[in-house]
């Protein structure tokens, strides 16, 4: 079997040599290590003033995207709710009325879309399941609250506002973006709106 580390030693019940029984060389060696760390660069991040940088693919609070015309992309197909291992997503579908073409991209839309942020494990499977590129995880954090009910986020908190759009391009690897350029998916492109 391949060894997991090069530093593991087999424990043997051997007699200690005089050098080992003296303890002092080992103690001095240990103290040299701690003294080295004494002068090393410290790893502390002083939180309120400094914050740790997020990874580019950080999975935080979700966003429901709109297209460039401002129409919601979600069609309430329910694949995200099925994919969700924590069963955090629920939705109610509704039919688009005449004159609502600016609001909803397809004929069907989610009239209610709720994510329970206390159940959500931020795995990103909803994002993978979504055929319409509607839901994405972002680098925003979910706010802390005093009451549990507030954590059930509705469309008011999830759908992105047109005046402060959320950039999700970092969530997609180069390969994914390349794959989505295929003509078959052209209608679905993130920033392209249906005519």
């Amino acid at each position, binding site marked *: 079997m391949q060894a997991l580390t090069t530093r593991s030693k087999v424990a043997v019940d051997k007699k200690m040599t005089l050098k080992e029984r003296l303890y002092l060389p080992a*103690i001095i060696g*240990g*103290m040299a*290590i*701690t*003294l080295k*760390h*004494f002068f*090393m*660069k*410290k*790893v*502390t991040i*002083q939180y309120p003033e400094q914050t740790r940088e997020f990874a580019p693919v950080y999975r935080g609070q979700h966003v429901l995207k709109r297209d460039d015309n401002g129409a919601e992309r979600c069609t309430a197909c329910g694949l995200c709710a099925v994919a969700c291992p924590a069963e955090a997503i629920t939705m109610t579908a509704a039919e688009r009325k005449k004159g609502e073409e600016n609001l909803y991209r397809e004929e069907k839309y989610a009239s209610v879309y709720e994510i329970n942020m206390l159940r959500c494990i931020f795995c990103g499977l909803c994002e993978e399941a979504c055929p319409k590129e509607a839901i994405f995880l972002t680098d925003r954090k979910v706010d802390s609250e005093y009451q549990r009910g507030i954590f059930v986020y509705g469309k008011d908190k999830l759908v992105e506002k047109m005046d402060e759009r959320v950039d999700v391009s970092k969530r997609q690897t180069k390969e994914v973006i390349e794959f989505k350029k295929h003509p078959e998916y052209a209608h679905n492109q993130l920033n392209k709106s249906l005519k």
Partner: protein
Amino acid sequence: MMSFLLYKALLVIIIFVISLVMAMYSTYGERKVAAFMQDRLGPNRAGPIGILQPLADGVKMFMKEEIIPNVSNKFLFVLGPSVAMFTSCITGAVIPWGTSLHIGNTYYPLQVTDINIGILYIMAVTSIGVYGIMIGGWASNNKYSLMGALRASSQMISYEIAMGLAIIALVMHTGTLSLGKIAAMQTSWHWNVIYQPLGFLIFLICAFAETNRTPFDLPESDSELIGGYHTEYSSMKLGFYLFAEYINMFISSAVISTIYFGGYHMPFVGHIASGNFLAILGVIFLFAKIIFFIFFFMWVRWTLPRFRYDQLMNLGWKVLIPLSIFNIGLTGFLMWATGRIH
């Protein structure tokens, strides 16, 4: 006569205050050293670089609720921390903090009292220090406290023997028990550590055991005894116990610096200074040595894990005591060989 009393009283107060301030800032230093050795920053919010942290800790200790357990022996429960604090404070009396200041026509030695059995006085007072822990642990009426107290007393009694034997070799070399004379005779580089390296090593190890510091912190051993002898203590009584430990550390460092590391002497400094200036420089050198040894105590604490109890006893009885007896024999032989005794 009046001025003599006034000067002594002033000196006592200054030493008392310095001991307390050093102990206060040792707690801060301990946390900083621990943090730095673990690649952290340590307390740095109270004041610039956290310099006011000891004050904040002190205020916290005073404000906490004072709990005296119902089943404890109330009188002894209060007596314990008082004894611990008292004994650690009175040790500073015999340590020579410097030569003497020459003001007017009088010399003012910077030592409260140079009794001719200074070393024995220190040994005696540290022995009484066991009572503080013993009484506190017993009076708490708690098995963990009692275990801690038992460990503390047997450990301190065991290591006192080796410590005493190490000092005997030193006394053979110096020919006096007075700390003032021992410090005075180690001029420039003639530090006792050069003549007594083995004795110094034994004394240092015993000093760790006597002050209950890691790797010999079995009386406290938070992970097995929930704090040991001070488990039941709260508020400022707990503060006194913890504080006494830091004063003990300060005094041990002062004793080690005085009897083995030349006290207020420093090589070559006699050429550049004289008189009162030299005396003040001496005090600064002594404190530099003391601070180094306090750092050394902390350095060891944040490096070494705790001994097992049987290992501790083995080291004390089967290694250090024979070694110190050998050291006495070696010292005697070398003195005979160099013609100092006949």
